[in-house]
């Protein structure tokens, strides 16, 4: 147990952080049918902004300011890069997303000079704590609860408010929703605002854990969060959250598999930890082949 526990804990924590990013992917996909490749980079930009803002401002100003700026960036990206392509083929809007991702990464590389930046310590969650035999950061314990609270709030928003109803309608049938007088652009903007906000919260948790922010540090978490969204059934928020926890945990289990097997008396020294990223994609391919709509995805009938 003493060997398994640290890996399990960090798996749950990373899973929670992926979940916050994955919600942004799954909501945007549900409404626009767009893989928003720039979402992982919005997450990274939130981290970079926090580094620079906290250098000159106290935390109680810099953190809310970072959240607001990230939301504005998410909103602006949608307006500038996706809205003009609303009627274009789906591939061009996805390519536009790749272009935005490229732009954000290069901008961050320019501003940071390509060097890793030290993430500021956030009082309250950066400290260490002992759980039984394992030592971990407080953020590891805070993450799952915060994620569950945020997801609960989001589900309430979607099920019990007018804008939430509009979102559900748009994701069900884009054209009909428009005919029923729903302001599509407002709904899409709200989706991006919520997604960017959650990604910004996720970035605080993630970078408090890993502390180094580079211009590429959004790419892998972004990709994994998207995989989590597909895994759970894209378009479904509970699916994305559960998928993210599964991905986070299995990634960390693979990291620690040799140590765990060593405890059980099986000595393997073959560097299985190399596959901690690959296992995510292996899971993705298995689920796509076995159940293409994901764990909680709705069955879609192919329209002829």
């Amino acid at each position, binding site marked *: 147990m003493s060997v398994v526990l640290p890996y399990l804990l960090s798996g749950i924590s990373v899973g929670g952080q992926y979940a916050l990013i994955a919600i942004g992917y799954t909501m945007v996909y549900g409404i626009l049918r767009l893989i928003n490749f720039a979402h992982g980079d919005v997450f990274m930009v939130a981290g970079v902004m926090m580094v620079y803002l906290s250098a000159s401002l106290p935390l109680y100003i810099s953190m809310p300011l970072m959240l607001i700026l990230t939301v504005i960036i998410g909103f602006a990206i949608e307006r500038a890069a996706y809205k003009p392509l609303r009627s274009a083929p789906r*591939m061009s809007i996805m390519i536009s997303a790749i272009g935005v991702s490229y732009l954000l990464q290069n901008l961050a590389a320019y501003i940071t000079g390509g060097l890793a930046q030290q993430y500021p310590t956030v009082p309250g969650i950066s400290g260490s704590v002992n759980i039984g035999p394992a030592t971990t950061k407080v953020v590891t314990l805070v993450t799952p609860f915060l994620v569950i609270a945020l997801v609960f709030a989001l589900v309430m928003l979607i099920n019990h408010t007018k804008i939430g109803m509009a979102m559900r309608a748009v994701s069900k049938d884009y054209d009909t929703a428009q005919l029923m007088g729903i302001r599509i652009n407002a709904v899409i903007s709200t989706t991006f605002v919520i997604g960017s906000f959650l990604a910004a919260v996720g970035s605080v948790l993630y970078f408090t854990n890993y502390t180094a922010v580079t211009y590429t540090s959004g790419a892998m978490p972004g990709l994994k969060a998207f995989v989590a969204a597909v895994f759970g059934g894209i378009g479904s928020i509970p699916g994305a959250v559960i998928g993210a926890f599964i991905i986070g945990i299995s990634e960390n289990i693979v990291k620690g598999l040799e140590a765990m097997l060593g405890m059980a008396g099986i000595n393997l020294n073959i560097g299985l930890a190399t596959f901690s990223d690959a296992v995510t994609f292996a899971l993705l391919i298995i689920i796509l082949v076995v159940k293409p709509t994901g764990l909680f995805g709705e069955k879609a009938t192919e329209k002829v």
Partner: protein
Amino acid sequence: MKNLENKRGTLITAAIIVAVFLFVGIAEKIAPPSWNMLFMVLKKGSIYALIAVSMNLLNGFTGLFSLGQAGFMLLGAYTYGIFTIPAADRASVYQYFDGGVVQFALPVPVALILAGLVAAAFAFLIGLPVLRLKSDYLAIATLGFAEIIRAVFQWNVLGPITNGSNLLRKFPVFQSTISYFIVVGICVAVILLLINSSYGRAFKSIREDEIAAEAMGINLARHKMLAFCISSFFAGIGGALLAMYQTSVQASIFKSAMTYEILLIVVIGGIGSISGSVLASFLYIACSEWWLRFLDQETILSAAGRGRFIAVMAVIFVILLALMVFRLVKPKAKSRVRYGVGAGICGAVLIWLIVFAATGQTKVPLLRNGFRMVVFSVIIMIIVLFFSRGIMGTSELPDLFRKRIKSEKEEVAS
């Protein structure tokens, strides 16, 4: 009449291609060393051209949105490296793995073809499960496979073959630019012949409408698999050439960012245009590696030079801005958005210039390591948003040299 016009375009294109090859072949022999940059760009550009064309075959002509190109390039690059390192050098390359298990070296042409075949074989295995998936799901599954392949090649247990996460080096490489051009030329020509064959027409019909294609008797699974394998075959050869160009191979460079880069090239050139992809590759490499290089250098101007710089820039951009605004306010102006964005960019440059002039410093602001890529990605975004058909759209080079009257006639007819 129609045949004659077709021939005219083809002849001019053939003449241009021959001229380019002759130029590269001769210039390389006689050019001074200061031309090195040009040849580097030509080499890398030709490799990217092959990879972009192979991706276009899949994404543009068959309509399968695959993002696995970097993985197949990795397979090609590694296959080439593993089988061509001279036996004498293996001990030093595989120093952590006792010289590795492969103890022979294949001749370069055989290894190049083998690189393609290995990539195609893996494509076949990967294609069996994933080609049943549609659009986005196919994209993400192929992307996932590329990442898995990258992890496998970095695995230490396979070290005796792949050298783990260490470099493969000391394999034979092409020294001259023309060798790259010839290999790429042959491959692109084969793809071109394929696209104009009955297979090519089947691919295009799948792109246009899968169900209609199936109704016309096209075996969807077989043709999709064929396109996937052929595309991967050429991506593998492209990867092998890239390995030669870099003189070393490491799995960690074949990230998904590389696939995105190639996809952007395909889009800039025009999805569904071979000559567009080729042109875009050279332009893309030239811009990113050469023409925009000055943006990365911190530049300090002398007082006189500064005045001249500001004056020249101001004149150029004021004229450009005036042209854009003139287009914008003209009644019944077409494509207002494009000119609006153009005017916005000119305005931004002018404001930057005014700030520069007002502060009185001699160091050109903003120019610093990394600025090149920022400007470059802004250019790409502008192309993606406002010129989404790319340089060539779906037309090919010969189409450009046909008489205008004919295309107008076609428009009337359609």
